[in-house]
């Protein structure tokens, strides 16, 4: 068993284990932290597959930016005292069974799919040089469109996040009720 394979198994176990912890943790903050662990292990998989650019981007974007955003939102909401309302036990069970059977069915269905290999450690398509060349030649139009998507997402987020009260009626600031997030911070 080569070192790569050992690494693969370790990373897989970490990924699945931390993913399970994400959905089982009581407190959302723990979930976020365990999700960050999952993302790191997935980045490790990317490295194994010699997709270095994606590994880096995954850590920066997901583990860095997105998860920090989650954490920030969780901090905004004061969830310490108010724990998540318990979901119906049977519904929980049904959800677990349904998801489990989906896994079962898919694994059973794809068991004999094919035995081709995925290249590990080698191949340089995942390097930033090659990806960058492809991105700025063949895929330059989607790339630019993606920037527009970001812009619109930003505008949308700002509009949704704006306080509704200040939009509806121009109440003097002194008389305004304290904003919920202001109270919680």
């Amino acid at each position, binding site marked *: 068993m080569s070192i790569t394979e050992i690494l693969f198994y370790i990373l897989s176990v970490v990924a699945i284990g931390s993913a399970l912890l994400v959905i089982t943790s009581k407190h959302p903050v723990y979930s976020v932290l365990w999700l960050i662990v999952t993302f790191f292990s997935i980045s490790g998989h990317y490295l194994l597959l010699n997709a270095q650019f994606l590994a880096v981007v995954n850590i920066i974007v997901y583990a860095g930016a997105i998860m920090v955003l989650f954490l920030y939102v969780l901090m905004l909401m004061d969830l310490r005292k108010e724990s998540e309302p318990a979901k119906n036990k049977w*519904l929980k069970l049904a*959800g677990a069974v*349904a998801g489990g059977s*989906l896994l079962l*069915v898919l694994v059973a269905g794809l068991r004999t799919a094919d035995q081709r290999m995925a290249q590990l450690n080698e191949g340089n398509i995942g390097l930033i040089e090659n990806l960058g060349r492809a991105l700025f030649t063949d895929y330059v139009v989607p790339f630019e469109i993606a920037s527009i998507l970001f812009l619109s997402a930003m505008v949308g987020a700002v509009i949704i996040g704006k306080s509704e009260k200040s939009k509806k009626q121009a109440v003097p600031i002194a008389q305004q009720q304290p904003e919920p997030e202001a109270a919680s911070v």
Partner: protein
Amino acid sequence: MKNLIALIPLLPFIGFLINGLFRKSLPKGVAGFIGSGTVLASFVISLTIFLQGTYSATPLQYFTFISAGSLQIPFAFQVDQLTTLFLLIITGVGFLIHVYSTAYMHEERQDHFARYFAYLNLFVFSMLLLVMGANFVIMFIGWEGVGLCSYLLIGYWFENVDYTKAAKKAFVMNRIGDLGFLLAVFWIIAKLGTVSYNEVFTAANLAKLTATDITGITLLLFLGATGKSAQIPLYTWLPDAMAGPTPVSALIHAATMVTAGIYMIARSNALFSMAATTNTIIAIIGAATALLAATIALRQNDIKKVLAYSTVSQLGYMFLALGTGAYVAAVFHVMTHAFFKALLFLGSGSVIHAVSGQQDIRYMGGLRKALPVTYLTFFIGCLAIAGIPPLSGFFSKDAILLNAFVYDKFLYAIGLITAGLTAFYMFRLLFITFNGSFRGTEEQRHHLHESPIAMTLPLIVLAILSVVGGFVGVPELFVQGGEKLTAFLSPVIKPADGLHVEHSTEWILIALTTGIAVAAILIAFFRYRTYKEEQPSAIGRLFENKWYVDELYNSAIVKPLNALGAFANTFIERSGIDALVNGVGKLVNYGGRQMRWLQSGQIGSYVLLMVVSMVVFFVLQFFLRK
């Protein structure tokens, strides 16, 4: 020439459009002028065609009307001898009726007046289309148009509910016949794949039809003809059609609508001459209609009703002629009948005009002095319809009776009796109306006056035509080189081999007809010279009540149909279809109510269902595909 011919129907149509669209703003004089002028122009064109002899059997195609697969129906006119003759009758008599109408309808409101002329023009247009079409489909357009216009004109005074009912009756009765016509056309299309006359009536095509086809087609066509031409069993609409203004009755009964059936059968003579069974049926129905209507006419007291039943009776004559294969005689009688029946109707209109709308002859009498022109022309019309030589009715009726005599002695006897009855009831009408003393109110007596020139002039013209109109068909018996009409129509209607009748027999028949007519007139004269109330006998009551045919139809057809309708309404519509429809609605409603919990807005349950269905699909895809 082609464009000129297209103008014949187009002009009345333009008149219809102008009068119909601008009826609110057109003064009466202009509306009447447009209405009459367009028909006059058509008449002039028709006359040109007749005089120049530019008619031919070649269809003039204007555009493709229907193109469906191999079936091509062109919009084409065919102006041959038969059509030319009908064109002259329709536009000529139609024009006189238009002129007459300008005076007769003068008291109508302005927009109603223009509406009236619009309908009249549309009527003439439809009738022209009917006779000019070069195939059955164009004829059918005209056929339907005539039915529609008769409905509009009979129900012209639509404020009166009875009149609108009469219009409805005419429309429904016509529709029954139209269905037969339509089915016959479909049958022809199915068998021959064409509807053009010059293709259908070729020997090669006729040979393709089996005996059943020919009998079926001709019977269906005849059903159509009974509807339009008011034969048993569909004749009851025509007397009720008297609800319309009197000139309309003249137009419907004399020049146009009722002759459509005759025209159609004469046009299809190639087909009908091969169908012996149908011919027998036509002859019997024609004779029966003639006799039945004549007996009813004996006891009617409404001046227009008498004339209406007289029309039915004369149409019966024509069908008798068609059944016996005497197509020329039938067309001849159409022509002479158009003259004297238009004359009689317009004359009755003049009388009604004079006595302020009174139609019951029991309240007339002694009008001879007040209405000299009307009386004289009416008298000529009565003589013509009674068949007194040498007026037009004599020749045409004689031709029919001669053919009937050769065909079947019994039918001839019926025709002869009817001829006597015709003379009797017409002169009864004449004497009661014009002789004796006036029996109306004092006010009406004061009001009595001869009609204006616009009304008397058509009467005079028609009276002259009634006198001389018969000479086109003088038989060989009288004049060497007679039978001009037969020769004229010979390209369309193949002349018969000639009737093998001794000249002595012919003379006897003529003497018999004339003798009976004269005798009937004399009886009528002595009986009705001075009017007195008469107690009707049992048979008289039967005649007076029109053989109770309306009542029979009412109880045998209308009431069962109504009952069936009520039954269907209750059991099929309400508890069947309605229940089904409502049931579907209720089921969906119930189902929706039950399914509503699924649409809970709970995202979790949506996702759960989504996952479950995904599992199901994957199971189907991976494991159950084999």
